[in-house]
């Protein structure tokens, strides 16, 4: 787990329909429920099912957040779909010492050469999601990794938002999140 302080900016990479916005939303809600300042929002546009999309979260423990621009220099990047890595520049603007969180079967070390200056956390979220949820939708699962790697919020702070959002499917999502939390592999920055 890495120490992040002040205003933390997080960028999600996903595809239209994969729920990147939802995970951003859940994280922000969790942070807010802990009394933090936070907000979340999607990349605004008419992106269609399948197209690469972004979502953003900002969290600050101390003061209200006044910037609503898209995050261009994130502290944390979360990648929901491993196939995006070769398509979009996922580390664009990622701050030195920042955290890269990827859904992949690979270990952090294998992810790529050149990712040395960032902490890297990986998990095979697709398999977890398929096992636990029955569908390869990894947006909730990946929050578990994020929590593990950054400690930005407490895992249990997510339970209420997840329950509100998913109703009878909530418990399974929580389980997936927990499993991801457990199975996360982390490589500290070089």
């Amino acid at each position, binding site marked *: 787990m890495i120490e992040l302080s002040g205003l933390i900016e997080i960028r999600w990479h996903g595809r239209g329909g994969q729920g990147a916005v939802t995970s*951003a*939303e859940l994280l*922000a*809600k*969790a*942070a*807010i*429920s802990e*009394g933090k*300042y*936070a*907000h*979340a*929002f*999607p990349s*605004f*546009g*008419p992106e269609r099912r399948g197209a690469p999309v972004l979502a953003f979260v900002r969290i600050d423990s101390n003061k209200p*957040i*006044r*910037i*609503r*621009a*898209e995050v261009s220099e994130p502290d944390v990047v979360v990648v929901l779909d491993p196939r995006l890595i070769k398509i979009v520049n996922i580390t664009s603007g990622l701050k030195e010492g920042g955290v890269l969180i990827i859904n992949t079967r690979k270990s952090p070390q294998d992810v790529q050469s050149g990712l040395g200056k960032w902490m890297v956390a990986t998990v095979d979220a697709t398999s977890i999601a398929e096992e636990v949820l029955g569908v390869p939708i990894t947006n909730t699962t990946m929050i578990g990794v994020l929590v593990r790697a950054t400690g930005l919020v407490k895992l249990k702070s997510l339970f209420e*938002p997840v329950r509100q959002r998913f109703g009878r499917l909530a418990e399974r999502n929580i389980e997936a999140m927990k499993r991801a939390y457990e199975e996360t592999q982390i490589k500290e920055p070089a």
Partner: protein
Amino acid sequence: MVKKVGMETSVAIGEVVKRVNADVIAAYPITPQTHIVEHLAELVAEGELDAAFIPVESEHSAMSACLGAAAVGARTFTASAGQGLELMHEVLYVASSMRLPIVMAVTNRALSAPLSVWGDHSDAMAVRDTGWIQIFTENGQEVVDNVLCAFRIGEDPRVLLPVMVHLDGFHLSHMIEPILLPEPSQVAKFLPENKYPLPLDPSRPVTMGDFGPPVIYSEAKKAQEVNLRAAKEVVLECWNEFARIFKHSYHPVECYRSEDAKVLLLAMGSFCETAMVAVDKMRGEGKAVGLLRLRLWRPFPFEEIRKAAQAAEVLIVLDRAISFGGPGGPVCSEVRSALYPLDKRPKVIGFVGGLGGRDITPDGFEAIISRGIEIAKKGSKEEFEIFGVRE
């Protein structure tokens, strides 16, 4: 104490409309307004709000259905944006001149062409003559608070006017952020029942919407204009009362670090918060800059603007809309007009920026302020400048 909850602003609007127990919602979908009405549709479908949700076939009909509902005394809500606000343009005049209180959330959006679904203030400015009360907001909480206030203001028997609450498309509408919703008990205290004095009613037949020959049309218009201007007092009263109950106060012009500022920036909507960051930074560097956040756009707060601006040397106004071939930014033009009679008055420098969803960062605001100061000193070839366009 109740805690703030993370919630999308659009959803929060729906929650307010539920808490005020609105009777009729007539709306037509348009990005970025959709989440508001979708949430309302859901509340109605789930039986959480006992209202008629009328899924009309166009925005023209949305506003028209609202006219009808308001005319029988229903508490009436709608939401729109951009092209939708344009398509109902004709109807907007009627709502105000027939004095029908309707509350509309407008998720500000740019106008075609080219088609843009993103935020700017073109739509809001395009309706500035229509006789509605128009309130701008800067974050989700302000949206929520002012939607609630809008019902109270519009339905006040001294007012009886429609009210628009403007929230920037996406930048406010699609944000999940901390929000405190009004408690039912607070709403009950704050918002009286809607009692339209002369509704359509077979037991007391009235005729609404007459034909006005020249001998009487001017009288009707003067009555409307005087009434709208007088509404400012009710707005102030409402915000005072709001502060009493909800502990958060609102003013027509909010001054941020403007006390001794030689240079002031004036903005509206969600950009205000970004601009604050720039102002803080510049203050940190010892520069005497401040920010005016214009919140009540109609009725226009002449006195407040004069008071807030007259001591400055330079007033930089950022518009998010162009009156093409005209004065440039409408806000800048009206501010100039308002300050015109003053003997001592700031130089007023106009910028247009943030069109069609283009962002302005804190650095951008710094650049605007610096360039504004430069223009104030050296002049510019242009009547106003458009910020951040690729040359």
